[in-house]
């Protein structure tokens, strides 16, 4: 489906603002009389608060106010559960322990806020934080996920009998029965380690309570402006339209910015109203590392039952999932893991069990990949393990078990993050893999390139994996499309943007329907003053969910244009058509009316009003999917490993994906490349490390290694398969996380293949040269 604008490689409209420094970010907001906030955060991971003495801080010149939990009175309340508990799943157990806005009685992770200082400048506020005397009695920290689950563990929440945050079991078929039929059973333990969202811009929050208008305006770097608005209004006892949340340009989201009800957005509106002054807080990098949210961190115990010919009979996966000190974001991440462990292969019998544990670490919420990465990692590693056991080629065992396109739509029998049973809607998974191995010249590599390299003493290896990406889940999004009197079109949606290119793709959808230039479509995202219904930016759902709503609204406007124009031009509706920027009578381009003039006419004056008046060339529409749309793909890489230093270079990288209909091939490639850099970061660079006392040892970019341009593959190719989703009019599926999912398992497989002299068994998703060296030294030499 390619049109004049839709499906075309339109350059990003937002880039001229971003690249010339004209975009307005949170920290660019300056309001006269604005104060600045700084948080004092706990150095201890787990401690009982004895006393917080703020006397000296309050006396600090330039300090306006200092607050601790004690000063907040009844306003101090535990935060909301932002995602409902998974009670759609039979027998699910879930202990909600939501986020306190500021620590009271006990601190449960290093970085937890304990006091906030409001001062004339950020410098003063930070200095005054140092005047606060925090007296606490340290407790042992809960860090190890498997030990945390045991009854003997120290408790993160004293009122619970254990550190169990949740226990969720799902089964389709009967794994134990299938195991009895198996020729081979393989089992293994895998670790998917902890990573940060690490957006270029940290979080930010500016709030202004206007006493005279009784309105509060908030500028926030959030992925969820509408839930944020509702939460603030609810806490402050205001009606929703008294609070306007504006998301300015945001330098990356990647998941953690979906969280609301953290210290900043709970405390600062309250303080702003109390002091009747605007307040700004911009998160610094260390705060972001310590106390925003992060993800991954699971330990899996997997078992796979197979026939000798490689046919999978069943899969069992019991995994520990770290939710951190609190679980305000419910179970989105581990449920995604459950649905992604087996979604690409035919697994007739599947048992999966989530053991979600509280630890003395920062809260875990989605980071690009959001549980899918871990599911894909363990399944692909288990496929490699089975292939090794059965002496099969890794590609062969995958081709044998991949779902066939004739099987769709396929009910997976596993309930996902949207609390409905998963349905794989469309795709051709086998063709993704076939295309991928063709693009990377798999046969040639195995038969010619690799043997030759080995003779020369080089260690080249290849890894090939497949994946699915569950995207575009509900609940819903909406949009309003309006033609202005100048003939230009505006689109407002509650969906917020963090650099994905929404200003361009949303404009393309509207431009196609209304036959106006893409640059004549002005898109407003994430401003609750412009559109006040919606959920938020997560789960690769922007183009699909908000995009579908925008398309529907544009179709309605188009119908209204035709009706209004036909009346004005005095011809039947089927006799008018859209010319660029105007409506004309078919076959008579001289008989036309510009869209701007038509918009003026659509706003009737006195004497022209009809009883059922619906003014303006404007329409609002919503879209809610029955369930998510599932993208799919395959990924291959060739690596060159130096066995002595364990440095790994990625020589070639191929990713074939299917996200249904493509709105903009240029932006699509950008999304995938960005995802791949994150996936490669996960595979060999990024890792959050806590010591046994719960101290985060990687709280700066000196210790938390981000991949750089020079770490990217020397040669990268992307292949496209297009199987439109039957779930929405445009046939869209999301693709925001696709690139991030397959690199870690493909990397492991390729490195094992490269270091062929060793019986290497890579069981962790986040490697680095030192860790790889350790694995290599522990491996037996063949």
């Amino acid at each position: 489906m390619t049109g004049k604008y839709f499906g075309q490689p339109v350059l990003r409209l937002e880039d001229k603002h971003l690249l010339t420094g004209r975009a307005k970010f949170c920290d660019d907001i300056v309001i006269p009389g604005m104060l600045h906030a700084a948080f004092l955060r706990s150095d201890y991971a787990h401690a009982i608060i004895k006393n917080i003495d703020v006397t000296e801080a309050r006396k600090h010149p330039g300090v306006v106010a200092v607050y601790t939990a004690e000063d907040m009175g009844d306003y101090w309340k535990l935060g909301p559960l932002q995602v409902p508990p998974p009670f759609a799943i039979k027998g699910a157990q879930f202990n909600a322990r939501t986020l306190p806005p500021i620590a009271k009685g006990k601190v449960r992770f290093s970085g937890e806020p304990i006091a906030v200082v409001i001062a004339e400048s950020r410098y003063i506020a930070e200095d005054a934080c140092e005047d606060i005397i925090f007296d606490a009695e340290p407790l042992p920290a809960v860090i190890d996920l498997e030990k945390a689950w045991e009854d003997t563990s120290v408790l993160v929440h004293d009122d619970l009998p254990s550190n169990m945050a949740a226990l969720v079991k799902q089964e389709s078929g009967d794994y134990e029965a299938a195991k009895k039929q198996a020729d081979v059973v393989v089992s293994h333990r895998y670790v998917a380690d902890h990573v940060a969202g690490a957006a270029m811009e940290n979080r930010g929050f500016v709030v202004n309570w206007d006493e005279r208008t009784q309105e509060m305006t908030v500028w926030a770097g959030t992925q969820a402006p509408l839930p944020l608005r509702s939460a603030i209004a609810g806490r402050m006892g205001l009606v929703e339209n008294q609070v306007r949340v504006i998301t300015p340009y945001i330098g990356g989201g990647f998941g953690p910015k979906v969280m609301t009800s953290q210290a900043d957005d709970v405390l600062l509106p309250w303080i702003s109203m109390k002091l009747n002054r605007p307040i700004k807080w911009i998160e610094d990098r260390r705060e972001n590392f310590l106390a925003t949210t992060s993800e991954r961190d699971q330990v899996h115990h997997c078992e796979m039952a197979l026939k000798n010919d490689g046919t999978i009979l069943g899969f069992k996966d019991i995994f520990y999932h770290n939710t951190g000190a609190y679980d305000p974001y419910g179970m989105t991440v581990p449920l995604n893991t459950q649905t992604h462990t087996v979604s690409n292969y035919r697994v007739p019998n599947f048992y999966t069990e989530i053991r979600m544990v509280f630890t003395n670490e920062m809260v875990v919420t989605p980071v690009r990949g959001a549980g899918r990465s871990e599911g894909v990692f363990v399944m692909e590693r288990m496929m490699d393990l089975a292939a090794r056991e059965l002496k099969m080629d890794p590609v062969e065992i995958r081709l044998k078990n991949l779902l066939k396109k004739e099987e769709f739509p396929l009910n997976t029998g596993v309930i996902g993050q949207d609390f409905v049973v998963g349905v794989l809607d469309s795709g051709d998974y086998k063709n993704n893999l076939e295309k991928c191995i063709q693009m990377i010249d798999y046969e040639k590599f195995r038969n010619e390139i690799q043997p030759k390299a080995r003779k020369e003493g080089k260690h080249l290896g290849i890894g090939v994996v497949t994946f699915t990406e569950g995207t575009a889940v509900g609940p819903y999004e909406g949009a309003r499309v309006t033609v202005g009197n100048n003939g230009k079109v505006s689109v407002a949606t509650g969906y917020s943007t963090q650099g994905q290119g929404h200003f361009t793709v949303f404009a393309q959808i509207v431009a196609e329907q209304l036959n106006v230039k893409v640059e004549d479509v002005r898109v407003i995202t994430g401003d609750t003053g412009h559109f006040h219904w919606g959920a938020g930016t997560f789960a690769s759902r922007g183009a699909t969910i908000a995009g579908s709503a925008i398309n529907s609204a544009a179709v309605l406007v188009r119908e209204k244009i035709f009706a209004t124009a036909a009346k004005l031009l005095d011809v039947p509706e089927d006799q008018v058509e859209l010319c660029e920027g105007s409506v004309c009578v078919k076959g008579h381009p001289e008989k036309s009316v510009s869209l701007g003039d038509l918009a003026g006419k659509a706003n009737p004056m006195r004497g022209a009003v009809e009883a059922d008046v619906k003014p303006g060339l404007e329409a609002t529409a919503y879209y809610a999917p029955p369930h998510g749309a599932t993208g799919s793909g395959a990924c291959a890489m060739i690596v060159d490993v130096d066995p002595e230093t364990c440095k790994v270079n990625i020589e070639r990288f191929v990713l074939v994906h299917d996200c249904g209909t493509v709105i903009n091939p240029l932006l699509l490639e950008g999304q995938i490349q960005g995802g791949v850099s994150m996936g490669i970061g996960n595979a060999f660079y990024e890792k959050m490390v806590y010591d046994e006392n719960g101290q985060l040892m990687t709280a700066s970019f000196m210790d938390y290694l981000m991949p750089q341009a020079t770490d990217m593959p020397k040669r990268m190719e992307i292949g496209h398969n297009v199987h439109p989703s039957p779930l929405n009019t445009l046939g869209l599926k999301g693709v925001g996380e696709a690139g991030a999912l397959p690199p870690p398992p493909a990397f492991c497989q390729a490195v094992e293949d490269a270091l062929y002299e060793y019986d290497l068994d890579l069981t962790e998703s986040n490697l680095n040269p030192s860790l790889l060296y350790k694995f290599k030294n522990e491996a037996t030499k063949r």
Partner: protein
Amino acid sequence: MNVEGEYIFNGPQQAVYEMFNDPTALATAVPGMQKMVQVDETHYEGAIFLRIGPISAAFEGVLSLTDVNPPESCTLNIEGKGKAGFAKGVGRVKFTDIGNNQTKLNYSGEVNIGGTLASVGQRMIDSVAKSMIKSGCEKLQKTLEERCQQK
């Protein structure tokens, strides 16, 4: 973090042991140490200014001696707190006469750190601790020589 090592002092065991129990000697030996005051027989209060990579901050703390067994061994317990975090450590020191008027110091200990010190300084703290111990011992050797000459 674990520290472990040895150092050979040119001096008799008794003199080395006494020096280790003398707060003024210790205070001058530790780089950045700003004060060291004896509170009672086994407790000292001190203040130190440390530079660890990007962190430079003042810490205040208490040093206490336990398992005192002159002139052979003792255990040093440190608990310090500052704007850049906290540290809590135990160090065991043992002195052995190895003849030739030489005394061998064996030390081993664990230090737990928290706050900025851990999240930003962890990577550097090993080498900082090693270099502090090394320069501290060298300084103490000089003090020891001066003391022995005075006698």
